[in-house]
């Protein structure tokens, strides 16, 4: 039987080729036209430790990583131990044996396939090819397109020469033969797509890099931090093609400072970091707001506080992102749901920064950072690109002139007559320091009131469902994709439920929240942090009194968890 929606998990020791095996499965599925959504965990250490790569492939659109796997491929005993509780009746289990480092006690109802991965790789004189043996076996057992895999393996290793390609293909073939010798007992086969759309496959981090380049990024200042570093990798590779530059700074304070400098000089600039880096940037975000210098900062959230769980998923920087800086300091905070958003909302982040001349924070998270997904081919011409309002050279120039929309035209250095100062000191309309009560009140009002238009002009939050319902579920970030699936399952069971998916988190679209709340008998906010950070803001800013449903175990929600909580609330 072909399963339209199959989840294959490959697990083992970091460095054994787990990630590349998962990548190959993903690429092959996407190449044949399947939708994919991947999910990875890896250790904080470079060598060793448990690594896992899960590919969900379907003939229908996917919004999350799913509940659990249908197929587990364990490279070692640790992978088996960590996943044993999820080996439910009906799942398929491929493992390294005989000759692996463990002898599994296969639970009843599980379809087990011992494949001697280590031994076979050794026999072939290529211990590194253990994962290719596994991949061959998986390919045969679950109908992962053989031809696509062969092409991708060939392309992947072609740089290393024909012998390496040959060796890997041999191991792959041997894996297929080993599997063919076993009777197929489970019912699972990967789905066969009926149509092939024009798609690309990108991770969340790469998509943010692409979005920035589409937006017209000129300058990227980087400082390495998990799980955000791949954004810099993508930009470093592709931005020079468009004539732009990336600099690696000495720390995050320097990276955001460089962004402000480049932006003052008239360029579109950004940096990307995670929570610890954002904490260091707080003071300069205040300067961005005070001096009205556009600035885009991406925060790929990870488990905190402090060093926390550096490689794990969490949505716990909402407080920091909205309030992180001293003094009354405004900003715009956006949050992405999936890979497609990572492109579109990054473009939007630049547009907002250019329009409102303030810091714009874009929140992603550890799960989305490394999750690769199929998305429709993005037409670069389809994105609206906004550039800052610049002085027309007519009247005498005052940098902070109070206009009808409170937005003051900027002047790039080199513009005759446009000389001015960007300063963190309170200043008057000309930029001169001025600490009088009347001036501070007028200028704070100017800087905040220009942001009044943000909510009005931003695409309203998506409401999933119509009319009144018993339960409304609010989610942000990659949790939205989980809630989408949970809601469709609940509806299939006849539950009356709606979803609310805000992408603009600050300034908060209060009326939209309240209208949604008014249509639901009960409201739940699902988010991956301990304190219920979005729920906190909802209580503070709106008339909603939602139930806060939080987890913080370093992993995202599953649809089943949301379904369970919803039923409990409606009992």
């Amino acid at each position, binding site marked *: 039987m072909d399963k339209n929606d199959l989840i294959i998990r490959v697990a083992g020791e970091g460095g054994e080729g787990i990630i590349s095996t998962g990548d190959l499965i993903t690429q092959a599925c996407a190449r044949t036209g399947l939708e994919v959504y991947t999910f990875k965990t890896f250790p904080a250490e470079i060598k060793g430790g448990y690594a896992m790569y899960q590919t969900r492939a379907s003939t229908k659109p996917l919004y999350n990583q799913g509940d659990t796997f249908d197929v587990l491929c364990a490279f070692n005993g640790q992978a088996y131990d960590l996943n044993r509780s999820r080996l439910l009746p009906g799942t398929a289990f491929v493992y390294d044996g005989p000759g692996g480092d463990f002898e599994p006690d296969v639970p009843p109802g599980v379809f087990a396939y011992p494949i001697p991965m280590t031994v076979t790789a050794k026999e072939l004189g290529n211990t590194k090819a253990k994962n290719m043996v596994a991949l061959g076996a998986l390919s045969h057992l679950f109908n992962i397109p053989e031809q696509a895999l062969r092409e991708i393996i060939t392309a992947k290793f072609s740089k290393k020469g024909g012998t390496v390609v040959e060796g890997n293909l041999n191991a792959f073939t041997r894996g297929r033969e080993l599997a063919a010798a076993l009777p197929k007992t489970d019912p699972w086969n990967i789905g066969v797509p009926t149509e092939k759309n024009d798609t690309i496959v990108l991770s969340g981090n790469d998509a943010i890099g692409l979005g920035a380049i589409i937006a017209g990024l000129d300058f990227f200042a980087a400082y390495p931090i998990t799980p955000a570093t791949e954004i810099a990798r993508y930009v470093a590779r592709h931005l020079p093609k468009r004539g732009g530059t990336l600099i690696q700074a000495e720390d995050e304070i320097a990276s955001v*400072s460089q962004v402000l*400098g480049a932006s*003052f000089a008239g360029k579109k600039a950004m940096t990307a970091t995670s929570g610890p880096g954002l904490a260091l940037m707080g003071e300069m975000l205040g300067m961005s707001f005070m001096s009205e210098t556009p600035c885009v900062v991406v925060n790929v959230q990870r488990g905190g506080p402090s060093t926390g769980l550096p490689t794990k998923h969490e949505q716990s920087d909402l407080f920091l992102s909205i309030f992180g800086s001293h003094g009354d300091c405004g900003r715009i905070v956006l949050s992405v749901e999936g890979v497609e958003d990572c492109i579109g909302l990054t473009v939007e982040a630049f547009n907002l920064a250019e329009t409102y001349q303030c810091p714009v924070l874009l929140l992603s998270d550890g799960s989305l950072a490394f999750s690769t997904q199929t998305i429709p081919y993005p037409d670069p011409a389809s994105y609206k690109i906004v550039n800052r309002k610049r002085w027309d050279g007519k009247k005498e120039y005052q940098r902070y002139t109070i206009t009808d929309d409170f937005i003051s035209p900027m002047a790039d*250095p*080199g513009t005759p007559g*446009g*000389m001015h*100062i*960007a300063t963190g000191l309170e200043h008057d309309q000309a930029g001169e320091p001025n600490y009088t009560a009347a001036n501070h009140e007028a200028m704070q009002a100017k800087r905040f009131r220009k942001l009044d238009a943000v909510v009005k002009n931003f695409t309203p939050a998506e409401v999933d469902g119509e009319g009144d319902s018993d339960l409304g579920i609010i989610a942000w970030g990659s949790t939205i994709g989980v809630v989408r699936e949970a809601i469709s399952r609940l509806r299939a069971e006849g539950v009356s439920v709606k979803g609310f998916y805000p992408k603009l988190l600050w300034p908060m679209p209060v009326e939209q929240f309240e209208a949604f709340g008014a249509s639901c008998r009960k409201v739940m906010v699902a988010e991956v942090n301990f304190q219920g950070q979005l729920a906190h803001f909802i209580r503070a800013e709106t008339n909603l009194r939602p139930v806060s449903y939080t987890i913080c175990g370093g992993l995202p929600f599953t649809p089943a968890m949301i379904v369970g909580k919803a039923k409990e609330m409606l009992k």
Partner: protein
Amino acid sequence: MSCAQTHLHKVELQTKDYKTDTKPFWCPGCGDHGVLTSVYRALSELGVDPNYLVNISGIGCSSRLPYFVRSYKMHTLHGRAGPVATGVQLARPDLAILVNGGDGDGFSIGGGHMPHLARKNINMTYVLMDNRIYGLTKGQVSPTSQRQLKAYTTPYGGVEEPMNPILYMLTYGASFVAQTLATNVKMTAQMIKEGMEHKGFSFISVLSQCPTFNVIDDAKSFKGSAEEVQEGHDVGDIDAAMHAVNMAHKNNRIPVGLLFRQERSTLDERMADLVKQVGGSPDYDLRKIIDLARP
């Protein structure tokens, strides 16, 4: 010599043309007045077009200097003038970049940035205005304060040894290092001028007395300790520069003059080469980048 910072945009202006209407807020007798005069003189002698000059500072008494200079300018955060200036310079290599700041700003809170401005050879001129004290917060010891200084937080005298900014900058790889006294406007203006003409990161340490809070390092004591770089000193020899600074330090002397100058490529040049190497251009088809993500 190449004049990388200023060759593009030159005008003929008097020193007064670089003055703004804002009057300097420094105390009478403050060395910073002399630095400002030197800046005006250097800019007018070079003929820098103020429209293409960006004057950047951090926080402190000396960091107010840009308010008094006609130019584009940024008055940034404590310690962050260097990285902000880096962003401006890399984004717009056609601009002349002048950074001013104090000893606390540059070598305490901002000390982590200095090595990277120097080693990356960011094309800018950094004028350190070293009064060996925190003035704006009313007289606390700084990383360059002499140990015996009794100040706000050291009522019994200090307990730390001072650092030597120019020795650090030589070690960090600055491609131009000079030192002067604020009271010597002629030499200070000359060094700022040469620093701005220098292609790369130029560092000019100006000992700028604080008559209000630093009771031991006054104009007179600076003058008394100053020792001009010996005739015949080879400014291209890093060992000679380090030796001169070390010897002066040992003898409690302050070496003044141009200590080191080296021609080497700047970061913006190397980045431009990189763009050229990949055939980069704003017209590069985005689809070619997106196509790489096809499965």
